[in-house]
């Protein structure tokens, strides 16, 4: 029984690991922290898995646990902040990729997103993942109206950064 559950969980996480990697990519700055956070999210998911009833989609449930872990449960270790190295590897950013305006804008925006606070980051993340406002509101525990207002503010903040 337990073995079955383990197998089911690991298979499902293996198939959906992108969700967790994306949260890690947004909330950490180097490869070691990325792996640390991935590890902690996996443990939290596994701990919560026996109670997962399937009344929401598995992915919705994973977004929530992953974000909660990144924002609230995980203690950032202060060691190693090699932002530069990591970003160039992880976002495959090469200097010559950025010779036209659009690409430069993208680079600016990724940098700007990285500088946002934890909650703002979560909002932008859910926007980038194409989640609707009802899911965003439910994930964070705020009303839909507030999610909309807040999202507009964060978007405006980002736009000002790239178009000063």
């Amino acid at each position: 029984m337990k073995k079955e559950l383990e197998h089911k969980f690991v298979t499902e996480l293996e198939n959906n690991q992108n969700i967790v990697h994306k949260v890690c990519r947004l909330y950490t700055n180097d490869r070691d922290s990325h792996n640390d956070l991935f590890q902690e999210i996996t443990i939290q998911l596994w701990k919560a898995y026996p109670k997962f009833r399937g009344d929401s989609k598995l992915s919705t449930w994973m977004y929530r646990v992953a974000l909660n872990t990144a924002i609230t449960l995980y203690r950032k270790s202060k060691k190693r902040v090699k932002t530069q190295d990591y970003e160039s590897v992880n976002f495959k950013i090469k200097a010559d990729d950025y010779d036209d305006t659009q690409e430069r804008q993208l680079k600016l925006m990724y940098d700007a997103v990285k500088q946002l606070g934890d909650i703002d980051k979560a909002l932008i993340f859910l926007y980038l993942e194409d989640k609707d406002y009802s899911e965003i509101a439910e994930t964070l525990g705020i009303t839909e109206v507030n999610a909309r207002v807040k999202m507009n503010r964060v978007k405006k903040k980002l736009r000002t950064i790239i178009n000063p």
Partner: protein
Amino acid sequence: MMDELELLKKDWQKKEQELPKLSYEDIYKMIWKKSSSFVKWIFYISIAEFVFWFALNRIPQSSDDVFDQSKYLNQIDLGLEIVSYAIMIFFIIKFYINFKKINATDSSKKLMENILKVHKTVKTYVWFSIGLFIVALLLFFVDMVIIEPELSDLATKAEGANQPWLIYLMSALVFLALIGVTCGILWLFYRLLYGILLKRLKQNYKELKKLEV
């Protein structure tokens, strides 16, 4: 021109192919590792606090020879003991219930609220314990000086002096100052300990709360 944020979204989704890929075995190994969640730290620290304060509140009462000689104080002492047990049991149950409510599948706001609630329970227990500790010390002081004067050097000195009340007053002041300093140090210690642990959580909670106004 296409909206910059739409552009970012498209690029973000395109970059999905560049994400790391972990194997089944990698993930399987991960589920057996120990969590380093800071909620665990709060749990351990809270248990240490329960034990520490409970032990400390037993110390004044354990100097039994002083209390044994005074029936009146003995009864108060017994009362205090019952009260401190009752308070301890009440807080442990409350702490346990709140701790069990911490659930990573709740919404972010609810999760933060539940963690802060656990912290609040412990904080209230600590203040109760400090109160109880002070009451016990006061009783001890009163006993030494007034009810059992032969036990106290101070009382002998006070009786020989011209103004015995002055000596009583001064020793009371010294005693109060000591309590004050002790509480101050404790308060600072807690601010520091939980301040470090809960700083980020409180910031994020405030950010979410701000949205509701």
